[in-house]
């Protein structure tokens, strides 16, 4: 990204949930009693301030995350989606994703989403094992999953994705295999399958500190990862990012913005954005966020990203994509500078260690993770960060 290039990707955060999951440290508040309408007003104010300060010609991707965006009622949903369209020039081919939790999507709501422009839904399924779902604090069950997906299809959504988790407390390899099998039977075009990470300020963290969180050992987690990669591959999915698998043409374009280190708007309580080499994080609390939008952009903090840091980020996020990074993209983002001149030594070492490989393209050079590199990605990403 050259300085000054306007974002073409838009992230909006809806910080409400019906309850809080044991592993979640996102900005989210239990819905009951929350000023949802006032929050939607505030979002509109932030949209207005944002496009005024930094207008864009076109938005290629929108991602509405949470929290659980689908806790909005159909009228709220309708009103929210209208405001997005009113302030942002959405492309004709926009990828418009909304996160949803099974059990929060009836036909009416799905219809409101569809009519409001949403064309992709990412369901937080996490597992097809009711016992495990309960253990991680999810309120839905497996039947909700099937019903929600059936409804989504009925209303006309075909670009659907589900999230699954592995490395959950007491999860066995067989349980994971079973969940992946059931997920594949749904014949969706996209799956996100990621390992549990115990974040601070979560119930799981507390349990972990007390030694009461029976996580599978590294060896078992390794086996799970290898198993699920094989299963997805055998079913014709492309492993296109560390935790993401898609049928050709169904890769998440929005998330690819992050991975290519390109700019994006971030709106809503606790949202992150990146533009003009500035990263920002919004105020997290709902009411403080609402109040702040009355006066200004509701920033909690903003910090400048130096060119050096931006270059490191380029490698750190870019190598998450299994196609890797390209020298030409690097030069384009950094005023013609050469990737090899900047990181040649580190790359050579990683190649020697068998974690990275060089790809000769027609008129370009690329670097990507080897199979071993995918398993030990942090060793690769970390190598580019200079303290």
């Amino acid at each position, binding site marked *: 990204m050259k300085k000054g290039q306007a974002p073409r990707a838009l*992230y909006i*955060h809806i910080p409400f949930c019906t309850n809080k999951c044991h592993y979640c440290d*996102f900005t989210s508040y239990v819905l009951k009693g929350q000023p949802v309408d006032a929050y939607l007003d505030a979002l509109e104010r932030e949209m207005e301030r944002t496009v005024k300060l930094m207008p864009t010609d076109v938005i290629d991707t929108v*991602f509405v*995350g949470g929290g659980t965006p689908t806790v909005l009622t159909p009228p709220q949903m309708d009103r929210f989606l209208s405001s997005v369209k009113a302030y942002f020039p959405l492309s004709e081919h926009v990828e418009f994703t909304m996160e949803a939790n099974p059990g929060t999507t009836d036909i009416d709501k799905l219809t409101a989403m569809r009519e409001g422009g949403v064309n992709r839904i990412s369901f937080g399924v996490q597992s097809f094992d009711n016992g495990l779902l309960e253990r991680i604090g999810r309120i839905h069950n497996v039947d909700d999953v099937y019903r929600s997906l059936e409804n989504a299809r009925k209303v006309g959504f075909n670009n659907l994705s589900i999230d699954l988790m592995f490395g959950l407390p007491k999860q066995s390899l067989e349980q994971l295999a079973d969940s992946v099998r059931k997920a594949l039977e749904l014949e969706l075009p996209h799956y*996100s399958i*990621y*390992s*549990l*990470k115990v974040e601070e300020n979560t119930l799981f963290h507390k349990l972990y500190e007390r030694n009461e969180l029976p996580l599978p050992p*590294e*060896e078992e*987690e*390794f086996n799970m*990862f290898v198993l699920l990669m094989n299963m997805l591959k055998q079913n014709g999915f492309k492993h296109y990012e*560390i*935790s993401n698998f898609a049928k050709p043409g169904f890769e998440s374009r929005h*998330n690819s913005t*992050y*991975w290519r280190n390109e700019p*994006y708007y*971030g709106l809503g309580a606790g*949202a*992150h*954005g*990146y533009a003009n080499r500035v*990263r920002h*994080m919004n105020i997290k609390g709902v009411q403080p966020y609402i109040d702040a939008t009355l006066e200004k952009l509701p920033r909690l903090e903003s910090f400048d990203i130096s060119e050096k840091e931006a270059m*490191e*980020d380029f490698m*750190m*996020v870019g190598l*998450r994509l299994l196609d890797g990074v390209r020298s030409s993209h690097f030069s384009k983002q950094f005023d013609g500078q050469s990737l090899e001149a900047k990181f040649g030594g580190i790359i050579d070492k990683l190649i020697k*260690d068998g*974690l990275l490989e060089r790809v000769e393209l027609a008129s370009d050079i690329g670097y990507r993770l080897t199979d*071993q590199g*995918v*398993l*030990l*990605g*942090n*060793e690769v*990403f*970390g190598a580019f*960060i200079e*303290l």
Partner: protein
Amino acid sequence: MTDVRDRQKKIRNFSIIAHIDHGKSTLADRILEYTGALTAREMQSQVLDKMDLERERGITIKLTAVRLTYKADDGEEYLLTLIDTPGHVDFTYEVSRSMAACEGALLVVDAAQGIEAQTLANVYLALDNSLEIVPVINKIDLPSAEPERVKQEIEDVIGLDASEAVLASAKAGIGIKEILEQVVSKVPAPTGDPDAPLKALIFDSHYDAYKGVIVYVRIMEGSIKPGSKIRFMATGAEFEVIEVGMFMPSMTTVKELAVGDVGFVVAGIKNVKDTRVGDTITESKRQAPEPLPGYRRINPMVYCGLYPIETQDYNDLREALEKLELNDAALRYEPESSTALGFGFRCGFLGLLHMEIIQERIEREFNIPLITTAPSVIYKVTLTNGESMEIDNPSNYPEAGKLEYVEEPYVKAAIIVPNDYVGAIMELCQAKRGEFINMEYLDTNRVTISYHVPLSEIVYDFFDQLKSSTKGYASFDYELSGYRRSNLVKMDIMLNGEQVDALSVIVHRDRAYNRGRGICQKMKELIPRQMFEVPVQASVGTKVIARETVKAMRKNVLAKCYGGDISRKRKLLEKQKEGKKRMKQVGSVEVPQEAFMAVLKIDED
């Protein structure tokens, strides 16, 4: 000259003897405050402990001497000098020299805990120096205080009259005036002839970037002033005095230091080594016939290797050591190299605490991340060809075939402990190859147990084990008692098949197996998983005696990129990287700093 003699009568030089934690620094602060040497506003807790490190650890490392004026109840104004002394066994010699500069000492004993081994050792030092001892029972405001019992203990154990012991609480400011009154009435004024040739005892020094070495002295005979030509009797070095002064508590120049005074001398001295603690300063022209007694060279007891983690820091490390040496006559260093660690220095210290302090100061004040190898004592080795050598680095240990015999240093350890723990102490000392000397009852409840123990065992984990096996009730002191023949072997450690010289240790043959196993297990815990399997082996000669394996890392990759929160991901990777920075690449293996000290941290069955 009557002025000088009158003044001399009003001088009282005293130090404070106390066990760590018994409140010495707080008491010193209160005395300064009470005599107005510092206003309350200037007071920062523990003024006498200058270095941050001292303040943090709550211990005194360098000595300081503060001149105070005190108007006593008799209406006279007295000139008091409080000489602060280190409380740790590593610095016993420095304590003894600073005591030689005094006529009296406050014996501070915790009203709840009673006398501890270190206190006792220092009381004996004070008695050796014929000091008048003023007992002070501190912390009397504690609910657990038992001043009567402690008084009795002082009488029984030391044989001092404790009937007039001051009951004080330095923290609460209780008893400070009484202490000062007793100093005035009980501590004798300095004797010594003001007209005799100069005899000044050096009890400390520090290096100042502008003035050179500043020598801390006590004038025993005669006087000294700017322009005097002086001679250091042990080293023979001669200088001309530029300035003399006192600590009030900041350095203040005066016209002259006369008999009985404690102060400093500036004489354009470039090297601390010329000014050894314990040496006597006299006049070049009118030399004293005899130096003051008690001078001895301080020799390091413990050696270790200090290596920069980043090889490019080598020169900075050399400079850091040069600077520290200016202030620390006991520190020794010389360049050495290790196959595993590259270029570094072999350094000699008075003891483990001294070693830790130097290491921490280098890391903090000079910002050089270090690898410290396991400390070693000095072994005396005699070869089959009759040659003998001293070994302070295990990697220089000769191969078994060339070895006739080897001797290791022993200390006489005195441990004071409540009755109930006698068994535990004996067990510990036996396990540390100790040899029982005797046991004496201090009172009905507490015992002094003496043992001969190899110094290397003390250097290992004796302190920690002593603490844990007595719930912290034991106190401990030791002094070098000589060399003895021992059945020792060199044990090597191999990582991924490569011997790491910096991890070699010298151990008693009977302990080699246990210690080898302990080290391998500890290494396995400390060395993070690498991208390949790393065998850890301990061997004596060619025989492998223990083996563990650090399994290969299988999976280490962050999951999702949540809502574009790149900075969180970055922080995580930065943390991972920060950890690696503290590691040293040894061959193909990344070894964390603390692994090189692992030998000290093992549990032996």
